[in-house]
């Protein structure tokens, strides 16, 4: 008997939703589940974070049919300035050094390094794109409570009691992935002992589309340009201190924030709620199993200091989309190991590299041991004066180097 769907995706977040759009647009029969109803996900209070979208990721979103709903609300990042509080030296990335596509303005300024997109806008874009896709069924709120897998199908039992069959199940259900847990895939976890405080601020002067990353003794502090005179703050602190900061009154919180932010953009005022998330590194040894695939945070969660978590997830989406669509167009059963193995091999090195890099950077910078402090001061200076090294770092972060999926190269699958 033919299964109900080609692919069942658990988790309709930014990674799962993008995978769903890519697959459904190719004609595959897709069902996507999420524990939250779409109306809850697009509410302003649901997710106050903003995400850095690297240039390669922006191309993936364009190919997935999402960028048309995002380009007006995306804030370009033109410069990135990295500094260490205990050093006068800094690292400066200017987008004009990374012009990979000609820009229509004719000013030779080329493409930005990336974009800042508020997560709530991303979720609205997903809802609008999903609406247009005929082959895509959304079941939300809906949760998978059990999965059975055999040689021909995945049978997923939902909390409603309904049973759905598919050729393949994708777990894009985040750090606490239910699919991962039901499949019994082991997780390796390292707690950073830090929490990430996230909020949005208004400031007096325009940010000129510059992103700042400051390495303070207790953790990295990032100022990321949103539309208007607003920025998104990602502020890592040791967990007990973060808890204390979260408990401060609005006025006290503003003072703590201003001490780290500085006065270069004039008066800084937090707007809206603050969020606090524990930071950890976590990864699985493998991302595929019989008729099962993990993508995004479900198989690799990393430190947010480089803003790469979502970008890695979108690279997973591009690679998985290409692997599954190629197989589907050959009439192959998309749940087979020989199909999924290509995805795992493709993504393993890149994900490992980025997790290792963000882990190492955090370890080196969140530290005041003198040799390490000297090493990072020199390191920033050295990277800044060696153009090939500096460029390679950025190309990797922009998602423009390595063996790229078609969508990341701006090509259709």
């Amino acid at each position, binding site marked *: *008997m*033919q*299964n109900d769907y080609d692919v069942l995706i658990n988790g309709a977040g930014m990674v799962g939703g993008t995978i769903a759009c890519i697959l459904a647009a*190719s*004609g595959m029969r897709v069902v996507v589940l999420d524990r939250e109803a779409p109306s809850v996900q697009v509410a302003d209070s649901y997710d106050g974070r903003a995400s850095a979208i690297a240039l390669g990721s922006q191309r993936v979103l364009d190919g997935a049919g999402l960028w048309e709903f995002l380009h007006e609300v995306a804030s370009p990042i033109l410069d990135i300035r990295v500094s260490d509080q205990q050093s006068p030296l800094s690292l400066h990335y200017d987008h004009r050094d990374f012009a990979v596509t000609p820009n229509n303005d004719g000013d030779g300024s080329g493409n930005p390094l990336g974009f800042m997109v508020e997560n709530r806008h991303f979720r609205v874009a997903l809802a609008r794109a999903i609406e247009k896709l005929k082959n895509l069924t959304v079941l939300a709120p809906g949760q998978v409570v059990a999965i059975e897998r055999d*040689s*021909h199908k995945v049978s997923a039992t939902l909390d409603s009691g309904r049973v759905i069959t598919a050729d393949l199940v994708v777990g894009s259900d985040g750090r606490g992935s239910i699919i991962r847990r039901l499949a019994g895939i082991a997780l390796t976890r390292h707690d950073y002992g830090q929490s990430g405080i996230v909020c949005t601020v208004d400031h007096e002067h325009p940010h000129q589309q510059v992103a700042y990353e400051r390495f303070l003794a207790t953790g990295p502090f990032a100022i990321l340009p949103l539309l208007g005179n607003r920025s998104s703050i990602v502020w890592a602190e040791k967990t007990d201190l973060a808890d204390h900061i979260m408990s401060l009154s609005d006025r006290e919180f503003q003072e703590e924030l201003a001490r780290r932010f500085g006065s270069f953009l004039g008066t800084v005022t937090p707007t809206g709620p603050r969020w606090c998330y524990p930071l950890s590194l976590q990864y699985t040894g493998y991302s595929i199993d019989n008729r099962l695939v993990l993508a995004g945070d479900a198989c690799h969660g990393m430190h947010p200091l480089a803003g790469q978590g979502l970008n890695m997830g979108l690279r997973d989406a591009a690679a998985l989309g290409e692997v599954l669509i*190629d*197989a589907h*167009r*050959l*009439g*192959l*059963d998309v749940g*087979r*190991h*020989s199909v999924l193995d290509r995805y795992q*091999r493709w993504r393993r090195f890149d994900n490992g590299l980025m997790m290792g890099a963000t882990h190492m950077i955090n370890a080196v910078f969140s530290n005041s041991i003198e040799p390490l402090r000297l090493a990072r001061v020199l390191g920033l200076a050295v990277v800044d004066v060696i153009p090939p090294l500096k460029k390679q770092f950025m190309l990797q972060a922009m998602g423009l180097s390595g063996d790229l999926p078609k969508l990341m190269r701006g090509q259709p699958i």
Partner: protein
Amino acid sequence: MNNRQKTPHGASTASPEEVARFAAMADEWWDDTGKFKPLHKLNPVRIAFIRDMLAAHYDRDITAALPLHGLALLDVGCGGGLISEPLCRLGADVTAIDAGQEAIDVATNHAAQSGLNIAFRHDTPESLADEGLQFDVLVSLEVVEHVADLNAFLGALASLTKPGGVIILATLNRTLKSLALAKIGAEYILRWVPRGTHDWRKFVKPSELTKGLEPLGVHLHSMQGIGFDPLHDNWFASEKLDVNYLASFTKD
């Protein structure tokens, strides 16, 4: 299976030892992490060649839902159905035959569980030809190097093809490189396939295919080699025909 003990009817080009050897391996056919892993890995390149050839010949769009819709296709030497199933999913109306009863049993059972409607028959091309059947497309992969009489086999394929139809074959070339790689390398060193799977002396040169088919009004259309990339453990389409290769022919 009421004809389990029956040998395929009609004068047969299949040699009995070869039929028995594949039947013994049939159960493992669909395990893509087991013995047949190399064949499963080879499959995407082979299917892509078939699909692209047919799409070009019949003017179909490979990104469409059922690019092979409506084409009557015969898979000769289907084994466990590794090629029959994907071609059916792409829309072809597939009949598949094999000289091994156990392979047909495995294939029939597997396709039913996959919800695919494929007509599997324990039969030979010669007997189908005797019935006067004809198809738009004939596909026979990794078979010609196992048959007892190559020219008789090619003759049967030609008569089973409708005028204007397509024949697609895959086999191993008889070169020193294929002796080293496909016979000694794959069977004895890498153990990809069981020892004795192939008899190198029966490997087929492209010229032997064209020589056998040309007099029957079946002309070579194109050929493509299949290369192996050991670094990525992956097969790819190549211009070199000296080991594995695919060939497509059209009938007048």
